[in-house]
């Protein structure tokens, strides 16, 4: 039944006992697994309860968007630059990976508000909320991955080995989004402006990232892309899946490591913030 608990609640900051915080974070991850699964199932059922096409809508959007770019390129309205795979594959992969990044960034931002009833009435491991977000992004990703696989196969641009490698490294694109999403989530709970700024920034960031263009059309974008973690992860995963080659191994490794550190910091703050902010949600 319920876990046996010996709890001490004081006004003192939990940071004074870091070991206990890390222990609670890890145990929250283990204890919160089933709750996270239930929250995820609840979310999915609620999302698609009144929709005939259900999940199809989730990936029709990027496909339609990508189709527009394909038409623009065929009509020579835009120049895709030099790429070694069909532009259709390039742009669809880019869009779907970008959508995963964008979802992993925005979903955690509002997770506290969405779980307000729970957080204000029941003590739950904060990690359950993060895991539920991760499950949701992963679930939505499966359909995107299916589209990517089918398209590459159809266009004869599939590298089996590379695709499997990219699947194994797929969580890095989720990490790229969640690292910043989780870090900003507690602050967005207080100031919703943060979430709005993030959402508005995503569209220009899409055009600045190597999603639609292989070679950035402006010099400034070249510099920006060199430090754009989402862009670095995305372009490496795409080239790995289609050509079985890393675009830039050191950049990929360093970026992933930095993202992991940012995520760790965000998780730490998220864990601490729940009892402090539960009356302010």
């Amino acid at each position, binding site marked *: 039944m*319920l876990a046996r608990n010996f709890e*001490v609640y004081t*006004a003192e*900051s939990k940071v004074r006992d870091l070991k206990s915080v890390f222990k609670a974070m890890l145990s929250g991850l283990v204890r919160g697994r*089933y709750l996270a699964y239930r929250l995820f199932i609840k979310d999915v059922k609620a999302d698609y309860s009144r929709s005939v096409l259900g999940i199809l809508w989730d990936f029709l959007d990027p496909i339609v968007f990508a189709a527009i770019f394909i038409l623009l390129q065929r009509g020579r309205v835009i120049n895709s630059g030099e790429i070694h795979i069909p532009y259709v594959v390039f742009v669809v992969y880019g869009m779907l990976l970008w959508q995963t990044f964008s979802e992993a960034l925005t979903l955690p931002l509002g997770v506290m508000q969405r779980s307000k009833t729970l957080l204000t009435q029941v003590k739950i491991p904060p990690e359950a909320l993060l895991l539920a977000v991760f499950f949701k992004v992963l679930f939505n990703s499966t359909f995107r991955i299916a589209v990517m696989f089918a398209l590459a196969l159809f266009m004869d641009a599939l590298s089996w080995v590379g695709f499997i490698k990219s699947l194994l490294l797929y969580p890095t694109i989720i990490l790229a989004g969640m690292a910043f999403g989780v870090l900003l989530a507690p602050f967005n709970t207080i100031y919703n402006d943060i979430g709005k700024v993030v959402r508005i920034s995503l569209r220009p960031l899409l055009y600045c990232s190597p999603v639609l263009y292989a070679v950035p059309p402006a010099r400034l974008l070249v510099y920006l892309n060199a430090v754009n973690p989402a862009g670095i992860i995305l372009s490496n995963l795409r080239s790995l899946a289609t050509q079985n080659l890393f675009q830039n191994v050191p950049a990929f490794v360093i970026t992933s490591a930095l993202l992991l550190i940012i995520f760790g910091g965000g998780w730490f703050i998220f864990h*601490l*913030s729940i009892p402090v902010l539960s*009356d302010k949600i």
Partner: protein
Amino acid sequence: MKPVVVVENVAKKFSRNANVHLSYGIWDLVGEILGRSKNTRLRQDEFLAVKDLSFTLYPGDSFALIGRNGCGKTTTLKMLNGTLKPDAGKIITDGRVQALIALGAGFDPKLSGRENIYNAAAVLGLNNRETRAIIDEVIDFAELDDFIDSPVQTYSSGMKARLGFSVAVCLKPEILLIDEILSVGDYAFQNKCFARMQQLKKEGVTIILVSHAHTRVVQMCEQAAWLHHGKTVKTGPSKEIVEAYLTFLDEQEVKKMQKANSPLEEKKRPASQEKRPTSTIYGAFIYDSLDHIDALEVSLLVQGRKVDAFKIHDELVVEYSFNLKQAVKNLNVNLVFYRKDDGLHYGKISTLNGDVIKHIHTGRVSCRVTIPDFNLNPGSYVLLMAIFEGHSFLYRNVVKEFVVKGNGNLTWGLMGFKCRYEVM
């Protein structure tokens, strides 16, 4: 014995206008990250919702928090539950804590009752296997067998309450926190919940109850604390605390009335007889304390046999007796009939008509009341008995529930007239 709940000088502050002072949240969060302790220094628009609260509870103890809305009861439960961080003091809980702060926290209206049981159980810390082990018990206790696979959005609030309570009590907690959640649900289910809580108490579960149903508080809890504007006014035996609190409420009420409609006639009641207003559908309030009377017995008889059901137009005899625990000067008894479901008041038989028992001052009171033609139409009814001296109640509660059956004739409306029909 080792205590299971220790609350030491706990305080909690809130902002009256949290939306204006968003920065407080940021500073609190940054302070937590930087390792700064919280404090009770009040910033602009802040107030102490709980101040200097202390109590200690042992296994099997039951403790009530009473007071007006906004006095800090729920805040205290939330701190005990770990959902709110105190701004001062220390709280220790040693045992599996189960909070019923909101029935059905985590219920999704679109999902079925069964799916929501899994969700609620997960929220409370159970995994799939553990939930499967209790799900039949939960459904059985909630009495929702026929609706368990229907979406929760089709449930009444009472049904939701039954479902939530059932999940919670089936988890076998060691410390149970209950926040005024039994005000929903029908009377029978409320009784069932209280019976289950009594059982948990006997099994050594420590219960902390927040309630405005003061008779329940006295029945359920040995100890209580009366909070007012976050401050503990009094802690002690629940009966004493409830009486003190109700006296205070009465005084407040009188003050309000005096202010609104002066001059008001001063109503003086014996000190031990202040109103204990637990609102019910059967009149003003229920006063079921046995402070002034005991050994109350009430019987309904038809043709000399005790009955709980009889036919319309039967001759009904109501026999009652009770002991007076104190001398009285102006004793009266009212027998009041109400429709069970909605509390429709049908009528009253009072000893005031004829001063039937005015001469009785002490000892046992025994009476028989005969109603030659009981003409309420078929249905379920309750008999409420009010015993009072002068204008002060010694007792007022439902003493019998009974059913009037049809006698073969069709009936309409509220009453059946016994009549003789002649064609001229």
